[in-house]
């Protein structure tokens, strides 16, 4: 994977996705990102959680 300057020593992802992963109890480090530059995407996290919830809070 190419060096990604944004996230030293971290599995590359975006902050909201990291929050989601923690909330769903998914360990980001254990995932292989399918996004650009190996980015762990929301879909990766949801797949790992076995969930298809659209976001961290259920809504009406």
């Amino acid at each position, binding site marked *: 994977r190419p060096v990604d*300057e*944004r*996230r*030293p*020593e*971290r599995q590359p992802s*975006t*902050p*909201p996705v*990291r*929050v989601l992963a923690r*909330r769903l109890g998914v360990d980001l480090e254990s995932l292989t990102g399918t996004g650009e530059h190996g980015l762990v995407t929301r879909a990766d996290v949801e797949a790992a959680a076995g969930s298809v919830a659209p976001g*961290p*809070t*259920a*809504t*009406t």
Partner: protein
Amino acid sequence: MSEQNFDLVVLGAGSGGYAAALRASQLGLTVGLIEKGKVGGTCLHVGCIPTKALLHAAEVADVTRESAKYGVSATFGGIDIAGVTTYREEVVASKWKGLQGLIKARGITTIEGEGRLTSPTSVQVGDVTVTGKNVILATGSYSRSLPGLEIGGRVITSEQALALDFVPKKVAVLGGGVIGVEFSSVWRSFGTEVTIIEALPNLVPNEDIAISKAFERAFRKRGIEFKTGVRFAGVTQNESGVVVSLENGETVEAELLLVAVGRGPATANLGFEEVGVTMDRGFVLTDERLRTNIPGVWAVGDIVPGLQLAHRGFQQGIFVAEEIAGLNPIVVDDVNIPKVTYSDPEVASIGLTEAKAVEKFGADAIATYDYNLAGNGKSHIIGTSGNVKVVRQKDGPVLGVHMIGARVGELIGEAQLAVNWEAYPEDIAPYIHAHPTQNEALGEAFLAIAGKPLHGI
């Protein structure tokens, strides 16, 4: 004796109570919303909204006075306090009308009158018994005083200060927290001499010390006097003014004394204790999910110990409605709620101060960067100075953002996402902020603390 029954009963229609009612009705619950005064509570009628109208009038006065600096000729002719009042009242009336309409549109039943908790599932309002499977206590707060300091005559609280029909020549302000400095700022812009008395060592003492110091410098420059680290001893008043004496022997003479030493929970004689709700010095104790010790009884807003802010009330109200509806909402700690002090200059902050971060992680584990607005083009253009200070964990997330300067309150939303999402400055760095904005200063601070300052060393 009649009875009305709902899924949810909300006692008090201030920020916390009405937000709970609105969200619960959205989620399909029937709601009885009990209010003895006006829906909207403190914030709308005598708090957030009218004070910000005064502050805007103050800003207009200052802009007018300083217009020559920008090449605009104008003569400042003074404050027309009746005009200010008309403007302030129009803003409040319009927001009040909107809120009433919204509550009605959502199908919420408003019950007018003073309620008293009579059981875990019922509130008595006059001769109506309002019952519900769940009850939310949201009775809000009132202006506190100090022991032996009686409010009356020339000794006033924020409520009277808001409604003054004249511009005082000289005011003493007891308390250098949010409310005290807001009124001080307004009065100074209106031409009043102001002296603030604060027992703690600094003005806005809950802020990062760098911000408090910058704030003091700015107030000093505006000619607002303040005495910090000194306690109030007593006050006497006569026809023409007040004499405030301090424990260090000094006295402050003024036309009025504004007491702004904090707000106490409005929970006395409302039946809370009798029903067995656990209380502490008038506050209602809850767990982090806002449950009191009595199942089905919840509390939100200023009666819950912690930050007394309207949007915390909104957040808590929404939270409890969602919790009751079984949505399992996420908890947001008080430290991660944005705080804005509306004055000239403004202060806006969220997350840990440097001192708190050091306490939590150790000095070696954190890093800070303090970006001076002197480097920010837009701030220069609008004539403000100030700072944006970012605290991060080394090789870790943004822990806190602390800002001072004109209009910085509007920048706090971005900081709110960064802090709550535990973003690393490196996550933000690729997204260069719009030029020239004040928002860019926040971008520069994030860039700098990510190790790659753009317009900075």
